[in-house]
């Protein structure tokens, strides 16, 4: 089984390669990258004028299965990822039951094999039931295939427990991903605490509730030798803490999500529940700081925090609506439109943050177009502008604030493990 991509521009920052090259795939691996490749019997995929990138890796996704299949399933979530050019996802453990034991890890892996269309790497909860009371069986979880540990949206509030959890986790060399939020400070907040929350009469969550916990987690990680990864950095205060930590030589990696470099809390003014997420949309200064963090390398990567919710979760009062938005199908276009077209990041830098760095943080051999690597490849268009239409999304949920937004960076084709699985808007 041979597949030859012709006419495209290969952008492979992991190997510092950029240019108009053909790319040959044989038996699921990349076997040749070069000019005018001739390959007898190869199926030809003409990608003239398009960008050929390593498949995107989204390390923060909620697939909702098991337990919340009305929001998303492994099947629909991975199809949404595929359509968004994402060939590998790490999925969060806040399912029902929680991914806190080997059996659930194995269930997710086996379902992903039978029903999924891309690579799925389960993240296991660091405490049992993600309750923040007792450390999970991290060894068994690691052995069964967990790629990282996290309690995600239920942050471990007890610093001593977090210290022991990280200390114990450090022997497995897997990252501990932390959603940073001091729950005592955010209480029943529903948006960023700011002038906008004052005007809207909505309870605010201050940015320092995030940065304080980021600082705590970095300190604990460095005290214990754990690998800490700060999830969805949303504000200047946290960017500053992480920048300082990196300068000081402390070990920390982090991600942000497209909405944090695209939208401000003024988007909440319509009380549209698709602008409600946690951490919340912040101010203009925060958006600028997040972009600066991406530019100077403080922020390692971009992940979606894809959080599908059904209509019953979102078509309600702002206060009662669930936190979170979907993001897989707008990830790359938002990065291209908001960061690359605006010349804040080069295309290589953007692909580093969408593929190369997440692969390195998760410790997987992906994110590269080198000969011999897995042929996970995303092909996209930089020129054509299109309007986002959530009704055409593959995700089971439609809770996106970007419906109707005009973007560039539309996905043209996606290859997973050497197989062409998505082309021109259709899953093959």
């Amino acid at each position, binding site marked *: 089984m041979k597949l030859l991509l012709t006419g495209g521009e290969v952008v492979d920052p992991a190997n510092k390669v950029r240019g108009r090259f053909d790319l040959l795939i044989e038996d699921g691996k990349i076997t040749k990258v070069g000019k005018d490749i001739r390959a007898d019997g190869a199926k030809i995929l003409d990608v003239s004028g398009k960008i050929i990138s390593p498949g995107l890796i989204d390390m923060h996704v909620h697939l909702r299965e098991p337990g919340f299949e009305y929001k998303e399933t492994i099947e629909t979530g991975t199809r949404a990822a595929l359509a968004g050019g994402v060939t590998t996802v790490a999925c969060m453990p806040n399912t029902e039951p929680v991914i806190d034991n080997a059996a659930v890890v194995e269930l997710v892996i086996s379902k992903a094999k039978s029903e999924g269309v891309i690579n799925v790497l389960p993240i296991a909860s660091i405490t049992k039931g993600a309750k923040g009371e007792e450390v999970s069986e991290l060894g068994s979880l690691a052995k069964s295939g967990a790629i990282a540990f996290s309690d995600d949206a239920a942050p471990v509030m007890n610093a001593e427990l977090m210290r022991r959890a990280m200390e114990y986790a450090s022997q497995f060399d897997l990252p501990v991903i932390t959603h940073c939020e001091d729950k005592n400070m955010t209480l029943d907040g529903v948006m960023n605490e700011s002038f906008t*929350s004052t005007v809207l*009469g909505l309870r605010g969550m201050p940015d320092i509730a995030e940065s304080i916990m980021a600082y705590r987690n970095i300190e604990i990680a460095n005290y214990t030798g754990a690998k800490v990864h700060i999830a969805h950095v949303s504000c200047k205060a946290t960017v500053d803490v992480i920048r300082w930590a990196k300068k000081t030589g402390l070990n920390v990696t982090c991600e942000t999500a497209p909405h944090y470099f695209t939208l401000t809390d003024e988007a909440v003014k319509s009380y549209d529940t698709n602008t409600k997420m946690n951490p919340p949309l912040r101010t203009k200064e925060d958006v600028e700081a997040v972009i600066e963090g991406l530019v100077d390398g403080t922020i390692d990567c971009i992940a979606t925090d894809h959080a599908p919710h059904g209509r019953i979760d979102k078509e309600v*009062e702002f206060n009662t609506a669930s936190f979170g938005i979907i993001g897989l199908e707008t990830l790359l276009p938002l990065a291209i439109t908001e960061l690359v077209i605006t010349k804040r990041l080069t295309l290589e830098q953007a692909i580093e943050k969408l593929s190369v760095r997440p692969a390195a943080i998760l410790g997987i051999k992906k994110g590269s177009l080198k000969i011999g690597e897995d042929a996970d490849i995303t092909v996209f268009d930089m020129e054509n502008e299109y309007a986002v239409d959530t009704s055409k999304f593959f995700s089971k949920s439609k809770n996106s604030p970007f419906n109707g937004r005009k973007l560039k960076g539309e996905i043209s084709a996606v290859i997973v493990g050497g197989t062409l699985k998505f082309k021109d808007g259709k899953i093959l």
Partner: protein
Amino acid sequence: MPFKRKHLIGLEDLTPEEIKSLLDTAEAFKSISNRQVKKVPSLRGRTVVNLFFENSTRTRTSFELAAKRLSADVINFSVSTSSVSKGETLIDTARTIEALESDMVVVRHSCSGVPLLLSNVLRSSIINAGDGMHEHPTQGLLDMLTIRDKKKKIEGLKVVISGDIAHSRVARSNIYGLTKMGAKVTLVGPPTLLPKDIDRLDVKVENDLRHAVKDADVIYMLRIQLERQKRSLFPSIREYSMFFGLDESVLKLAKPDAMVMHPGPMNRGVEISPEVADCKQSVINDQVTNGIAARMAVLFLLAGGEANEIAAYGG
């Protein structure tokens, strides 16, 4: 008279002309309220639904009376939030109400943004009767009506609003309304009850009530909710009352003819002393009376009424 709106969600997006038009119309209705026959036929055949998700006998009664004086049919619909949580959503409830062929829905809800949400999904006119900590526009209007009655103007007056600004929809509507009409507004409270960046709203912000009331024409005291203490927003009722309670010694520091206002219900002896609540300068009962005329004006203008129509009733 420019008033072409379908909904009244808040005073934030009204123009000064629109507010003036509402106040002038309310003024005209006030004289009708003083007659023996207090009813006009303006809304005959229309249905006004009071959809209250939060208990409020005062506001609901005031709206009910206002609608009845305009000859509308009135339905009161109180929904406890517990029955809403049994699978029926807010939008389901509102659609059910609208299926009764309502023309105007007066809505009160503990969540900010609900009236705006309903205005997007229902055909009826939506009137905000208080949403969460967001706005209470008819309260703002009746307060301005009361001030204009006594002081014959709003422009240039020094108005002090004191208390729990952070959680108060009454404060927000008054800030928007009064500043648009040219008053100088000073907000007073401990930092914990002043919301983030409130000073960006063209108001002065102070922590010292005694200092703030100097030269005040109007002192507007907000109700302090006692449960705020549990959230460490103030250390004790005693201390709150000591620093932010309006008693005669504080009132003396304002202009001699300063008006004392309160949206009710009062915590006598906490934010306001009984002596001040009942003193000559207090207009707290006038506020309640003016509420009917202010709400008549809102219902009337949103239903497309013209001001000269009221003149025809002899108003």
